[in-house]
C-alpha cells in the first residue's frame, strides 16, 4: 500500500465514521477505528452562506484549513452541512481571491478615474486617512460615513461605532441591521406581532403536518429539509403538502403536491385560512360565489 493509498483509505474511513456518527448508524466492525485526524486542530465556526445558522467544525493543519464537518453538538444542523458547506474551506484558497487592497491609480498616483492597482496596506491606509482628513477639514464630520456589514461581529460593530461616533464625531454609520432588517422588523411586528422571523426549528420534530407554500426547502434549505424528511419518514401520520408554481425536488416527499393554476389555487386556499390567521370578525367566512372554483394540478406522491 503506498503512502497515498493508505492516507486516502484513512480519510475515507474518517469521513464515513463522522457521517455514520451524525446519523446514529453503526459502521461494520473494522471501519470504526478511524477517528478525526489527531494531526488536525479543530475549531468552531458558523456557516455564513445562508441564514439557517449551521455550526461547522473547522480543521486546521500546518496553518491551512484542510477539513470541515458539521458540528454534532449543534442544535440546528446536528452534525450535517449542505452542499454549500463544501465551499466553506475551498473558497479561502481560490486562485482569483482578492488578497491585497486595490487603489484606483493613473501613472502610479491615486486617481478617482484610474484603474484598480494592487497596493500595500500601508499605502491604502495612508491614502484613506489623507482623503478623510481633507473632507473633514473642508466640510466637517457629516462629510464622512461608513456602511457596515451585516456579517461583521459584535466586536467589529463596536469598534466601528466608536471610530465613527467618538473618533470622527459623525452619526453617519449604518449597518445592514438598519438597511435591511429595520424594514423587515417593522413588517414582522405589524403583520405577526413579533419582531423576528416566526417559527421554531424544534417544530420540525414536534409538528405533524407541514405545508410548503411556495418554498422549495429541498434545494434552498437542505439542512432543515433533512430534519423535516426524518420526521415525515419516522412519525406515524406525518404529512407534507407542497404547493408551488412548478414541480421541484420537494415534491418527492409530498403526500399532497399541488402545482398552482394562476388565480385558481392561491385565493381558494388562502381564503379559508385568513379568518383563522387574522380574526373571524374581520374576514368574510364564505367564499364569493363569483370566484372560480379551487383548482390545482395534483401531483401524486
Amino acid at each position, binding site marked *: 500500500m503506498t*503512502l*497515498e493509498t493508505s*492516507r*486516502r483509505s484513512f*480519510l*475515507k474511513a*474518517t*469521513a*464515513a*465514521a*463522522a*457521517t*455514520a456518527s*451524525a*446519523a446514529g*448508524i*453503526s*459502521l*461494520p466492525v473494522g*471501519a470504526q477505528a478511524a477517528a478525526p485526524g489527531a494531526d488536525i486542530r479543530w475549531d468552531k465556526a458558523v456557516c455564513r452562506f445562508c441564514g439557517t445558522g449551521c455550526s461547522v467544525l473547522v*480543521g486546521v*493543519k500546518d*496553518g*491551512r484549513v*484542510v*477539513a*470541515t*464537518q*458539521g458540528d454534532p453538538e449543534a442544535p440546528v444542523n446536528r*452534525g*450535517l*452541512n*449542505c*452542499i454549500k*458547506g*463544501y*465551499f466553506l*474551506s*475551498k473558497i*479561502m*484558497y481560490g486562485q482569483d481571491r482578492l*488578497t491585497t487592497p486595490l487603489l484606483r491609480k493613473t501613472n502610479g498616483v491615486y486617481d478617482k478615474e484610474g484603474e484598480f492597482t494592487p497596493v500595500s496596506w500601508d499605502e491604502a491606509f495612508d491614502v484613506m486617512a489623507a482623503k478623510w482628513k481633507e473632507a473633514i477639514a473642508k466640510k466637517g464630520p457629516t462629510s464622512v460615513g461608513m456602511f457596515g456589514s451585516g456579517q461583521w461581529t459584535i466586536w467589529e460593530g463596536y469598534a466601528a461605532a466608536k471610530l465613527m461616533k467618538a473618533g470622527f464625531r459623525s452619526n453617519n454609520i449604518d449597518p445592514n441591521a438598519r438597511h435591511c432588517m429595520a424594514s423587515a422588523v417593522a413588517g414582522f411586528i405589524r403583520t405577526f406581532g413579533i419582531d423576528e422571523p416566526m417559527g421554531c426549528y424544534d417544530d420540525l420534530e414536534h409538528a405533524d403536518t407541514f405545508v410548503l407554500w411556495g418554498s422549495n426547502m*429541498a434545494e434552498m434549505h*437542505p*439542512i432543515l*429539509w*433533512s430534519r423535516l*424528511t*426524518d420526521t415525515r*419518514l*419516522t412519525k406515524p401520520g406525518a404529512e407534507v403538502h407542497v404547493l408551488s408554481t412548478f414541480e421541484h*425536488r420537494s415534491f*418527492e*416527499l409530498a403526500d399532497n403536491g399541488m402545482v398552482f393554476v394562476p388565480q385558481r389555487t392561491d385565493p381558494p386556499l388562502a381564503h379559508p385560512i385568513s379568518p383563522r390567521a387574522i380574526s373571524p370578525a374581520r374576514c368574510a367566512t364564505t367564499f364569493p360565489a363569483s370566484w372560480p372554483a379551487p383548482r390545482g394540478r395534483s401531483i401524486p406522491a
Partner: protein
Amino acid sequence: MLNICGCLVRTHPDHTEAVINAINATQGGEVHAHKDARIVVTVEDTPSCLASDQIMALHQIPGVLAVTLTYHHFEALEDEDAPQTLS
C-alpha cells in the same frame, strides 16, 4: 489532491436498495453503511468528475430525498505544492 467527502443520503424507504446500487455504480461514490432509509456515503474526486459535481448528481438519483455533507477533507499530496496560504 485528496478531496474526500462524507455524505448522508436520505431515500424513500422503498428505493433504498436501488439508490445504494446506483451510488456504488458511480466512480467516486462508495456506500459504507445504511439504516432506516439513510445511507452513509463517501465521495471523492475522480479524474473526470469533481466530488462537488458528484454530490449534485446524487440529488438526481430517483428515490433520493435529501443529501447532506457531514465531513469534507482536502489536502495536497506530498509531491504537490500546497496552494498559497493566506497569512
